[in-house]
């Protein structure tokens, strides 16, 4: 895991495996406070208290194919090493909310990585899931809603359109990034 986009894919994959039909992905960057919040909200199967307690344990997994589960512990490590935190709330049958907070004035803060690339793959491979992605930097924000794309008749099944959507996300994010404070280590 060398960037935050990888973590995004990893955590969202957990939501998909929990049978979520609606997944919200939010990045909230604040220049004055030098923080970045990364949130994933889903309506999947959720976890009971026992699973929730064991979630941060790398040797806990619900899988039978292997005996370790490193996704969440890795995310916890990457946010805590910047002075941030990881918070998980979950209710069985309702869904899960996960929030990772990063301090962007800490040099250990990971780069964002190819968010646009991962996001388009998620949209393309999971056409039946409603994704809502937002990136917020102070007053600026960018939203991508998979239902909105459908309404506009945009078909990700065309490989050509896939790269257009990727470019659309990338350009809009780059526009936002221009307002990033110079003391931030995010890139």
């Amino acid at each position, binding site marked *: *895991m060398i960037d935050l986009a*990888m973590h995004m*894919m*990893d955590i969202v*994959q957990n939501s*998909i*495996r929990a049978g979520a039909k609606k997944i919200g992905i939010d990045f909230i960057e604040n220049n004055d406070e030098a923080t970045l919040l990364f949130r994933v909200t889903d309506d999947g199967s959720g976890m009971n208290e026992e699973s929730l307690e064991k979630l941060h344990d790398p040797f806990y997994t619900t*899988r039978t*194919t*292997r005996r370790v*589960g*490193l*996704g969440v512990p*890795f995310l916890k490590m990457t946010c805590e090493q910047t002075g941030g935190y990881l918070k998980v709330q979950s209710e069985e049958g309702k869904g899960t909310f996960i929030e990772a907070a990063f301090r962007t004035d800490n040099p250990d803060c990971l780069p964002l990585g*190819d968010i646009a*690339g*991962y996001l388009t*793959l*998620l949209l*393309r*491979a*999971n056409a039946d899931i409603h994704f809502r992605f937002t990136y917020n930097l102070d007053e600026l924000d960018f939203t991508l809603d998979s239902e*909105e*794309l459908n309404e*506009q*008749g*945009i*078909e990700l099944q*065309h*490989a*050509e*359109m*896939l*790269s*257009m*959507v990727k*470019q*659309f996300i990338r*350009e*809009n994010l780059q*526009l936002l990034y221009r307002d990033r404070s110079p003391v931030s280590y995010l890139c």
Partner: protein
Amino acid sequence: MNQISEIKTLADLKKKQEEVRARITLRDRAESPDSLVQVKVAMATCGIASGAKEVMEYFVEELDKRCIDAVVTQTGCMGYCFAEPTVEVTLPGKEPVVFGNVDPEKADEIIECYIKDGELVDGIIPQNYNTI
């Protein structure tokens, strides 16, 4: 620095879609997914960390370029973390085959030899073979 950007709004995106639609006469996609080639890329922590994204992007783009009707999806870890990125390919009417240590170069070989011609290539993880 002054890169010409074309796609800033949803309206731009919609325009592009119309252009694409006008240019390409849609290939008739087979109705049932059973008659399509299915490619599943393992996208769990282990896969992501080993570069599964590049492999998945390669499959999506190349299968389309080479006019092969296929469904490319992501799946969780199949338990072969030592051989990530792993890809499961199911040809119509055949048993799924799992390939390990796939990079774009290997993916090219899989498309050309296995998907197109049905020839097995190196790197198969014996998952569900039956003894005779």
